[in-house]
Each structure stands twice: as C-alpha cells, then as structure tokens.
C-alpha cells in the first residue's frame, strides 16, 4: 500500500530533478546489474538455447540445424520417456496428496494441546533436513527383500510374507513414493501447523457453543481457512516433484529395468551419458512447458500483479 516514492506528489518532473534522481539510483542499478545479467544469460538465455537445441539433430556435439519436431515425435515413441512421464504423474499425484493428508493429520493431532509437542514436531520434520541421496539409501536398505522389512516379518513367523516392491517392476515406483512421503510430509505439517496456530481462538468457542463436533469444524471451517497454506504447500511439493532425480538415482537407479525412470533422469542420461543432446533437450523442453503451464498463473497472481513494495 505505502509506496516508497520519495518525491513529493506535486513535484514537476523537471529535467534536472530526473537526472539527479537517476544519479542517486545509479548505485542501486549497478548493484542489481550482476543479477540482471544472470537472469538474462542463464535464466532466459540458457533456457532458449535448450529449446533451440531440441529442434536440431545434435548428438554428441551441439549442431544448429533444423529438423522441426522430429525429436519430439521420437520422444513420444520412446518407451523410456513414456515410462518416465507416467511415473512422474503417478509419483506427483500420490506424493502431493499423500503429503497433504499426512501433513494435515499430523498438524491437527499436534494441535490438540499434546505434551511433548516440540519433540513430535522435531521428529516429523527432521527427514526434510536430509538429502534425497541419504533418504534413498536409507529406504533402499530398509525395503530390500533379502535383509530388510520382508526378512524381518518372515523371521517373526510369517513365512509367506512378501514385500518385494523395490525389485518388482510394477511396484517399484511406489517405494519411491513412500520414501518421498517420509521426506516431505513433515514440511507440509509445519506449514499447516503454522496456519492452524493463526486461526482465531474464538472460532473454537463459537463452534463449541453451537455444538458442532470437532472433526466437522476441521473439515468444514478450518480447512477452507487454511487454503493459502495448502496452496503454498502444493507449490513447494510440486517443485519437488519436478526436480525428482537424486532420490531415484540413489534408491533404484531407474530400475528394475526402466520401471522407475523419471523425466529429470531421462534428460540427464541423454545429455551426459547417452550423447543424445537433441533428445535430452527435447525432453527438458517438455518439462519446461509443463511447469510453465501449471505455475505461470500462480506466479502472476502472487508476485507480478502486486507490484512493488507491500508488507
């Protein structure tokens, strides 16, 4: 609301005034210059370069010919890419909804004036501090059928118990989801708990007077009030989904077979190992397009429209 215009409202914008203002702002402009260059060269330049390369026939070295959409039609006929795409949809849907549900439940239960709240919060959030590589290695160890969970349950007397998702082509992607949920639910909990703490205490008195059961208050009143926090959590989780790479590399390396390949890994493999730059950049461009389509409206509403300074 309060703008930082230092000039008086009715000041005529004479030439000397403008020049002086420009002079005092020069250090500010210079300070922003490196970032502006990085935005221009890296964020815009490299992005356009990648898009451009996806229309070429580059393999080991970049070429600047033009093959139209040939790489894209090759991409959508590529089993590995199609598996990657469907995997990221499965992972994204289960990971985001799972984190929201678990995070919401944890936040609500912690919010019941429980003892040792700090301890519970610490336990639920600590996985978020660890890297995906650590997360992947830990879960790979726990879920490996030979010595992990399966053996544990079998040794307890359930001889026929089977839990081989990690090495099962159809189920392996769900082990990645489990590890992801372990890593990310605490974050959702922290964000939603902050939201719960911001809710007016009178609401609970009013609900109590009206005799509304607690769970109903949570689902019908509190949840809608938490909307901004839910949106924030979803945005954060979504960026995590798009970046999904380290977890897969550490946990399954895309296997068994190509069962847990994801787009980010497809791009990396084609750029740096399989010497197929054009196909890799085409996949990267597909990722870019998807992200922009999903996030551009949100970023516009949230950051670009309310211009300038506001608390």
């Amino acid at each position, binding site marked *: 609301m309060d703008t930082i215009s230092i000039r008086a409202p009715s000041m005529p914008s004479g030439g000397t005034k403008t020049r002086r203002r420009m002079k005092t702002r020069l250090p500010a402009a210079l300070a922003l210059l490196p970032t502006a260059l990085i935005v221009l060269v890296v964020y815009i330049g490299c992005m356009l370069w990648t898009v451009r390369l996806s229309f070429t026939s580059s393999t080991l070295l970049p070429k600047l010919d033009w093959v139209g959409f040939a790489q894209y039609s090759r991409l959508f006929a590529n089993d590995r890419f199609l598996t990657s795409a469907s995997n990221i949809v499965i992972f994204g849907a289960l990971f985001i909804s799972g984190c929201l549900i678990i995070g919401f439940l944890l936040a609500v239960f912690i919010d019941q004036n429980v003892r040792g709240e700090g301890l519970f919060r610490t336990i639920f959030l600590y996985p978020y501090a660890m890297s995906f590589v650590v997360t992947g*290695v830990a879960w790979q160890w726990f879920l490996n059928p030979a010595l992990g969970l399966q053996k544990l349950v079998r040794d307890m007397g359930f001889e026929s118990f089977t839990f081989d998702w990690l090495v099962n082509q159809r189920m392996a992607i769900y082990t990645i989801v489990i590890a992801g949920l372990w890593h990310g639910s605490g974050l959702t909990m922290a964000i939603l708990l902050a939201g719960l703490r911001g809710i007016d205490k009178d609401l609970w008195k009013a609900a109590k007077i009206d005799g509304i059961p607690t769970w109903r208050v949570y689902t019908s009143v509190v949840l809608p009030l938490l909307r901004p926090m839910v949106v924030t959590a979803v945005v954060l989780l979504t960026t995590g989904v798009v970046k999904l790479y380290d977890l897969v590399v550490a946990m399954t390396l895309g296997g068994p077979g190509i069962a847990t390949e994801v787009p980010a890994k497809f791009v990396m493999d084609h750029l740096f190992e399989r010497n197929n730059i054009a196909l890799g950049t085409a996949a990267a461009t597909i990722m870019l397009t998807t992200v922009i389509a999903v996030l551009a409206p949100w970023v516009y509403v949230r950051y670009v429209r309310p211009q300038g300074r506001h608390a």
Partner: protein
Amino acid sequence: MSTAVPQGRRPHRLTAGRIGVYAFLVTAALFFMLPLWIMVVTSLKPMEEIRLGNILALPAAMTFEAWIKAWSSACTGLECNGISVGFWNSVRILIPSVILSIIAGAINGYALSFWRVKGANVMFGVLLLGAFIPYQVFLYPLVRIFSLTGIYNSLTCIVLVHVIFGLPTMTLLFRNYYAGLPIELFKAARIDGGGFWSIFFRVILPMSTPILVVATILQVTGIWNDFIFGLTFAGRENLPMTVQLNNIVNSTQGERAYNVDMAATMLAALVPLVVYFVSGRWFVRGIAAGAVKG
C-alpha cells in the same frame, strides 16, 4: 477442573480420545524414526550379524569399525579414501557458496525493496519464475558456457552455480524481510544524506540478523544436500559428499558392506541434522519465510 472455562481446541473430557491422539502421534513418530534407527543400528553391527540378525535389533557386538572404514577407506570405484574426501570437498564448496549467495541475496533484496530501479520488478518476476523451472532446462548450455570460459569442472564453477541458482530464494527472502521494515527508517537515512551503500551497511545490515540466520540455515542445508549440481559441475576432484555417498553405496564391486554404507550415509546426513537440531524453530521459520510469506 472439569468445570473450567472452555478454552483451547478440545476439552480434555474424553480420555479415550486423548489416548487415540497420543496413539496416532506415537505411531507416526515411530514410522518417521524408523529409517534413522535402522541406519544407526546397522552401522554399528558387523556384517555377519547383519546377514543373520534382525534389522531392527540393537547390535549384539557393537563396533565402530564401519564408521572408521566409511570415513577413511571406503571405495568409490577404484579409489579407496573413504567419504572424508567428499566431506572436505563439500566444506570447500559450502563456505564460499553460502557466503556469496547470501551477500547477493541481501543486496538484491535491499535494492528491490527500497530503491526503485527501472525494470527491477520485471527482473525479479523472471527470477522467481526461474526458481520453478527444472534445472535440466539450464544445465547443458551452462556446461557449454563454462567449458568455453575454461572454468568447467572446478571449485569456482560449482560455487558459481550454487550462487546462480540460490538467487531466487535468497532475493525473495531478503526482499520480503526488508519490505517488512518501517520505511520511515529508510527515509530518515535518505534525508541524512545516506547513499545506497552507506544506508545498506549502517542501517539495514545491522537490522538483518534474523534473516541472515534463516538464510544461512536454508543455504547450508540446501547446498550440503545438493546432488545434481555437484555431479554436473564440480569435476572429479571436487565431488561433494552426496555424490560420493551415492558412488560408494551403488558401486557394485564385491559384496555390499551394508554397515559401511549406513555409516557413510549417517556421516553425510550429519551436517544438516546438526544444523536442524541446533537451529530448532529457526529451521521452521526458514521454511515459512521462504514459502508462506513469499
């Protein structure tokens, strides 16, 4: 006691309900603790015990051998110098990256929230959008640029990359914090004749301690946990701990030494865990500042 004024969320009348609440929380806590528990106990067991025993059980014959081996002699491919190499590489990457990215973020945030520079908001918008774009979109051209300038696969290169990709979050963090400071402060400093840098160093920076702490927590954990940049830009000589850990664990020569793997994993997790436990609420505040307020 039961007739007290109704306050708070749920009155404590249903003990069964209370038990349910605690049962849920404790079960969840056990699930969250499980991987850490098995990592720790596995790292303290000899291999025979791991092959035969229960994955959850405490070690019968506790030994720190695996930790020592993981630190100083575990193999990544042909080299067997342990994960300590990666640890020191990560430290060498971490310190300049954290310092430089925070300086950059603070200056940007200050310039953006107090000085009206033409086009600054557009730049900021693009930068923020950039935060959501998958890194894969930038990597190949960046590699080419760095190869051309001759710094590819060096410490300078990986530090630069961390600074570049830390810009959106750091700028956002400081911009929002500074936007919350009273504008009168800045106006007064302007009237006193303060320029861009003198106001920054004398007025703004001394008030920035909380956000500097938050930024440090965010960057230390973020950069320490990075995998993809280290893998792509650091070069063989500077591979960070995460990459080395992955190489140790997923190197397929011989029988896998799970105890060494787990000790190495714990070592790699140590720095962010210490940051997390020491910083406590600040960590949450960091996430909140980077997310909710943004």
